[in-house]
């Protein structure tokens, strides 16, 4: 079922349609929030806040087929509001907690190493320039095609390809990989 069909069904009171929209879009909304904030803590709460705001104002969506870019726009604004409120020193959203990245609580030696490696990798991803980390996060959070990514970000598939390539290249350089340094011009 397309997003537009789900939106129409949800507005007619279909419980299943709301659920499908939430489950379909939560990874993408979380990717947008994670990319905007550049950090993983608070992202879960802001994702929830964004989805709730979208569902509350679903009836105001004039073009149901644009649900995706619309909900991602809401997520962007929720994050900007949150960043602004943090700069002012107050945190407005009710449910924010001091949650840490969702690493499992008890881990043995090898697992700790693996988690530290993941932590390092994620921290480098978070330091990428916004357009690059946004496309990389959307891709890895939800395995989207270039066409779907282009639709969400309103750019061409070629731009998606270029940004993903550059993001991967930057990550390799920052994480100390030496591949690609001596290639043919």
């Amino acid at each position, binding site marked *: 079922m397309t997003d537009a069909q789900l939106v129409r069904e949800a*507005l007619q*009171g279909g*419980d299943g349609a*709301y*659920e499908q929209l*939430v*489950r379909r879009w*939560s*990874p993408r*909304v*979380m990717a947008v929030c*994670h990319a905007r904030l550049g950090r*993983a803590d608070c*992202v*879960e*709460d802001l*994702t*929830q806040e964004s*989805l*709730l*705001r979208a*569902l*509350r*104002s679903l*009836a*105001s*969506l*004039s073009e149901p087929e*644009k649900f995706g*870019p*619309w909900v991602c*726009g*809401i997520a962007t*604004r*929720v994050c900007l509001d949150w960043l602004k409120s943090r700069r002012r020193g107050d945190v407005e959203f009710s449910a924010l907690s001091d949650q840490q990245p*969702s690493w499992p609580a008890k881990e043995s030696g090898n697992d700790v190493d693996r988690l530290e490696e*993941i932590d390092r*990798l*994620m921290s480098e*991803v978070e330091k990428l320039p916004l357009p690059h980390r946004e496309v990389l*996060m959307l891709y*890895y*959070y*939800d395995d989207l*095609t*270039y066409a779907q990514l282009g639709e969400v970000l309103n750019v061409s598939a070629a731009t998606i*390809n270029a940004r*993903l*390539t550059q993001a*991967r*290249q930057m*990550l*390799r350089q920052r994480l100390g*990989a030496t*591949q*690609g340094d*001596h*290639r*043919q*011009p």
Partner: protein
Amino acid sequence: MNCQQYENLLSARLDGELSPEEEAHLQAHLESCVACQAVAAAMEEQDERLRGAFRLRRSAAASAAQKTLTELPKIKLKVPDTFSSESQKIQAGGEIKGSFPVSSKQAAGQIKGRVPLVLNGCLWGWRLQRGFWLRY
């Protein structure tokens, strides 16, 4: 094509976005370019690590979805059955504060309705002022 352009193709191949022609073209280059072979291997390794890292993040997204769904009954109670045509015209994403903004058309109508009142007030003010100065 240079190696940088082939890197775009390597990235697209990793993401399952290459056409058979592009795939053949890339393969022919890889057979003769050791540096791009190294990049391809590094990319695949990095992709695996990224997928592993984001697997944990996906579970966080599933958790956010679940929490949102528990709030769903409260939202559904607040969604009105019908909306005025003006409300439905609100641009996508334009309303996120939970209240319905006055549309520009409505605002223009309100201002237009008040213009004669304001002008009338100004006219009477001017007449009174003029009368006052003429008298004294």
